[in-house]
């Protein structure tokens, strides 16, 4: 606590002695620590010394060419599916809140359908569409054909996976975005309308940016989930990480070793995403807290330098550079 001028009543300049007390002891913390360490050590020991386990193989596959190629495809799938999911999700959420009942109903139906069927089935559907629709054509009523192509050329296995993952994701994102939009106080919309902004402008400049604070955390969650769900592209024979793992282990039976390799990579990628999410959240928190939360690095530094020193006093509020999303 900052030491202010002496309160009336306490003699000037006289500060009572700092409290010296024996801290409460926590014996159970120590006991539980010992138990946890023992269990973890045992599990590691079992895996490391498992008779059929070949750590050399893990090491060898970890940076194997096929695995690395699989990772690239996994990342492509994740990014593209999330882009479709977020963009279409925002559109669906805005449509859902539209005063036009037809528009709102279309969005409701979309969400109902794509959220109500398994994503695996949806990928399978797109992948096998050619079996019932060998050609796709677009013609205007007069009979003039604008566009014509074979379905197999149009929907490659990769496209089928993207469509399945992305369209399904959009249904979930629509609900996340809608929750964000309705979390923004109605007074914001009114103030913007009173300035003459159109509905679309109010949405884009005022409501959506504020909704982001609510939208970003579950979207990070969805992205991490998508990274792993993209392994379902396996059914469309897309050569992503899991497909590669399967192919290699079918050939040489190092099943567990390859599962460990894949897990290491999935964990590494989700960890990076978690860090990314933290910074995105921080960006959209501007204007909601007087001071932005410290980044882990800043917190670490402050911990080092203020160890045993009194906590820092509230300084002047840092002003942020003005930014436009």
């Amino acid at each position, binding site marked *: 606590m900052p030491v202010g001028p002496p309160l009336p009543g306490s003699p000037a300049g006289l500060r009572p002695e700092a409290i010296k007390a024996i801290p409460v002891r926590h014996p159970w913390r120590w006991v539980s620590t010992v138990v946890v360490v023992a269990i973890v050590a045992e599990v590691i020991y079992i895996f490391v010394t498992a008779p059929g386990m070949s750590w050399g193989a893990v090491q060898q596959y970890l940076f194997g060419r096929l695995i690395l190629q699989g990772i690239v495809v996994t990342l492509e799938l994740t990014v593209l599916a999330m882009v479709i999911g977020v963009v279409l999700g925002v559109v669906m959420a805005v449509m859902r809140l539209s005063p036009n009942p037809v528009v709102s109903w279309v969005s409701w139906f979309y969400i109902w359908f794509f959220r109500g069927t398994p994503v695996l089935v949806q990928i399978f559907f797109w992948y096998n569409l050619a079996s019932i629709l060998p050609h796709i054509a677009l013609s205007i009523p007069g009979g003039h054909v604008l566009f014509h192509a074979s379905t197999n050329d149009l929907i490659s296995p990769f496209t089928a996976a993207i469509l399945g993952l992305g369209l399904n994701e959009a249904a979930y994102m629509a609900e996340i975005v809608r929750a964000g939009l309705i979390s923004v*106080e109605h*007074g*914001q919309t*009114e*103030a*913007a*309308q*009173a*300035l*003459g*902004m*159109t*509905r679309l*402008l109010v949405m884009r*400049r*005022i409501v959506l*940016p*504020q909704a982001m604070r609510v939208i970003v955390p579950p979207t990070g969650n969805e992205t991490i989930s998508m990274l792993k769900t993209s392994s379902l592209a396996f059914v469309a024979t897309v050569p992503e990480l899991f497909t590669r793992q399967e192919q290699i282990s079918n050939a040489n039976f190092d099943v567990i070793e390859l599962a460990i390799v894949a897990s290491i990579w999935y964990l590494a990628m989700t960890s990076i995403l978690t860090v990314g999410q933290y910074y995105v959240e921080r960006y*959209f928190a*501007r*204007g*909601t*807290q*007087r001071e932005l939360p410290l980044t882990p690095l800043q917190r670490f530094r402050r911990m080092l330098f203020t160890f045993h020193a009194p906590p820092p006093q509230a300084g002047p*509020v840092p*002003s*942020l550079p*003005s930014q*436009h999303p």
Partner: protein
Amino acid sequence: MVKAEAVHKSFGRLEVLRGIDLEVYPKEVMCIIGPSGSGKSTFLRCINHLEKIDAGRLSVDGELVGYRERGNQLYELPDREICRKRSEIGMVFQRFNLFPHMTALENIAEAPIQVKKMSRSTAEAQARSLLERVGLADKVKAYPNQLSGGQQQRVAIARALAMEPKLMLFDEPTSALDPELVGEVLDVMRALANDLGMTMVVVTHEMGFAREVGDSLVFMDGGVVVEAGKPREVLANPQHERTRQFLSKVL
């Protein structure tokens, strides 16, 4: 500037406005007082078409609010037209409603840039001079939550002025403020009336302001105008029993 004839408005079965008749002349400052729930906010919101009226006629600057009249037939205006008309009317809210994700400067420059298609540099220059006018030249980069209530409300007034409105609506602009901050906001409003000759409709409980700055005072109760006149006369010598009762409680 504003003309209301028998304006009615209901929310479901609740009739909030039950025939409002009044006229605001150019450069006039009209203050509206009345008990809670009497429909003051609703009436203000009808003026810039945030609410639709059910019956009667309401016009701003000679044009009907929300409709176009051709022959004997009313046509609803398209959204674009409604937005254009709203942009000519400034509104200041009890709870400020600044955009929390934008700095003071961005709050003010936003509508001129997006609605009036003003260039960013012109809009920001204008925003700076408006901030100076409301005495906040040093708060250009502050976010709303870094400002006191009185400062936020002054930014909100500057934000409305940035659209160069021909009419300003104030809905209890000082009711959410700590008593010592009320003065700074009223000073800005007084300057608006005196220096710019702004036409203003002010819902307020500040009788001092109404007496000093107001050209007319309207007492509303139960969705109708009970009494209207020169502020000094209405305050000193109310004609109606309900006005007398209300004033005895607030003065």
